């Protein structure tokens, strides 16, 4: 990445560097465990004869990918985007629209999705990044709504009802028509994204981005082009979500405006906070925990008296709402954040 005239950063003072190293140790243990567990899911599912879990965990990993992307701007850039579902939608619609017109090649799908995502994210970012704070939250939301209404009005591609893909994207010898192959593709993309994000946030670019989060004026005074850094981070984070959208469309074999409903943007934010804002693995933990919670509550069978189970199955969203409120009030560091014993977070 071209970074002209950027002063060298003395990354962290010694005591914090030592703490950070300890944390990195924990992080790698966690990553290794996650790698093994997620890698073994299809095997375990086939042994248990519950192929349902393969698609469930695929879905979790796709949302984890999207949350990972969102965390890049929210956690490291301090920019609360309330419209990232839009990029999920762009990824999904790239697959849907191309498939509709008979283009089945997955590589073309991905390229088109990324190109469209980069274009939209750059334009939206240029406008949104003129404002900050509450205004940024709301204008990102408004742009996402704009695209949502556009998708609803695309009657050719199903409009409100969405559009069922004739087939999944064709990636040549990687046959993602097979659920397990698709699972491993999602798994590989997630792991690659994790690696890429970890490299990015620890790079000079990432450090400068975090600097902009804690004190943008100081970073500008030091000679960093803060605005450009934020835009780059915004576009990068959007592209991760676009990839998640491509995978989501393939997993469900379905494209629908509901992918970019504003509540999806809200859910992505919840996943990030649930796991731990501004931590590398937080969004992954948050996405998995959130979707597990959703799954458990919506199919509750815990033996509550007076038809409590049935009531819960029907109205689980209400309970989920209470959980969200409690998380927002009490769990400032998130699940992974507090697990990793992370008392201080960058930029706060």
């Amino acid at each position, binding site marked *: 990445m071209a970074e002209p005239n950027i002063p060298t950063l003395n990354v962290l003072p010694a005591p914090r560097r030592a703490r950070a190293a300890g944390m990195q140790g924990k992080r790698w243990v966690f990553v290794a465990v996650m790698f093994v567990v997620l890698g073994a899911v299809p095997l375990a599912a086939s042994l248990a004869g519950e192929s349902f879990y393969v698609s469930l965990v695929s879905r979790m990993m796709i949302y984890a990918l999207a949350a990972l992307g969102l965390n890049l701007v*929210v956690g490291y850039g301090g920019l*609360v985007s*309330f419209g990232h579902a839009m990029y999920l939608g762009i990824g999904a619609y790239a697959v849907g629209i191309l498939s509709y017109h008979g283009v089945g090649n997955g590589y073309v799908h991905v390229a088109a999705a990324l190109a469209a995502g980069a274009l939209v994210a750059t334009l939206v970012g240029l*406008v949104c990044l*003129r*404002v900050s*704070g*509450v*205004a940024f*939250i*709301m*204008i990102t*939301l*408004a*742009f996402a*709504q*704009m695209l949502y*209404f*556009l998708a*609803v*009005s*695309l*009657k*050719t591609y199903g409009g409100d009802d969405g559009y069922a893909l004739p087939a999944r994207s064709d990636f040549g010898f990687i046959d993602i028509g097979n659920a397990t192959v698709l699972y491993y593709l999602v798994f590989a993309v997630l792991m690659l994204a994790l690696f890429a994000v970890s490299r990015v946030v620890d790079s000079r670019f990432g450090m400068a981005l975090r600097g902009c989060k804690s004190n943008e004026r100081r970073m500008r005074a030091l000679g960093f082009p803060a605005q450009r850094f934020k835009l780059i981070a915004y576009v990068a984070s959007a592209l991760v979500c676009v990839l998640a959208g491509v995978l989501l469309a393939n997993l469900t074999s379905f494209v629908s405006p509901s992918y970019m409903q*504003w*509540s999806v943007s*809200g859910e992505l*934010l*919840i996943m990030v*906070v649930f796991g731990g*804002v501004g931590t590398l693995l937080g969004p992954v933990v948050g996405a998995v925990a959130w979707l597990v919670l959703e799954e458990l509550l919506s199919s509750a069978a815990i033996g509550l008296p007076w038809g409590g189970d049935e009531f819960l199955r029907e*109205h689980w*969203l*209400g*309970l*989920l*709402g*209470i*959980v*969200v*409120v409690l*998380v*927002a*009030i009490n769990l*400032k560091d998130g699940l992974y954040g507090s697990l990793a014993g992370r008392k201080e977070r960058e930029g*706060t």
Partner: protein
Amino acid sequence: MTGALFLAQILNGFQLGVLLFLLSAGLTLVLGIMHCINLAHGSLFMAGAYLAATVFERTQSFMLAALAAVTGTLLLGLAVERMVLAKLYARDHLYQVLATFGIILFFNEAARVFWGQAPIFMNVPPALDGTIDLFGLAYPAYRFAIIAIGLAVGLLLYVVIHRTRIGMLIRAGASDAAMVSALGVNIGRLNALVFAAGAALAGLAGLMSAPIISVQPGMGEPVLILALVVLITGGIGSIRGAFYGALIVGAVDTVGRAFLPMALREMLETSLAQAAGPAIASMLIYLLMAVVLAVRPAGLFPVRHG
């Protein structure tokens, strides 16, 4: 396109604008004074509509329905502020967004539990059931009542905020809460009061909308997003901005939906116009907002401090 149709659309736009003003005034109070973002504002709107429809059905008295809607949302607002938002004022906006998002989920589900999934309807009160003849256009009296009440509330808000002692404290709290607190004003109570007032305004908007839209779970979200657009376009934190912003957004949305598809049919070929017309019409206010922000990041009527 006839003159009567045009007039009707202008009035519809004005009426939507006035309703949006009631909603965004409440949001502005909370956002401008407590710097707190309350996405659950739409849920309070929904609560107002449900309470009004239920009480009106039981008693057939519009006055009682209004009383129930306004005091009900006032108390609900107080509860939400004390139980949730008061704990989050000092925090990042992110947590306020999340907590109020959770409240939306909860309220929508609560509405389903109490009133069911199906929409319920409320009749227009008999006294306002007729139409009023305006230059040969028969326009529903109820919609005129909405416009009148909205303008009256707007005027009242203006007087309270700019001409009374409590308004002075509210404005001072918006500029420098710590200083106001140091001068011996209970800022916590002031915040609760302002929040409850905002909630009551949302309830009032819900009450007045109930007879013209279907009352159902989730009805608060679309209007919430419209109100947010109003806030951004008008300029965050100023009641004046909310007022003009609401009228502009209401007019652009209504007139755009009514006439844009028609106008496009004149200019483009039919199939393209049929596809693009509704799409552009529903995106119009968001485009407006984006353009406004690109040109004036602080909104059309930014708040003036000092």
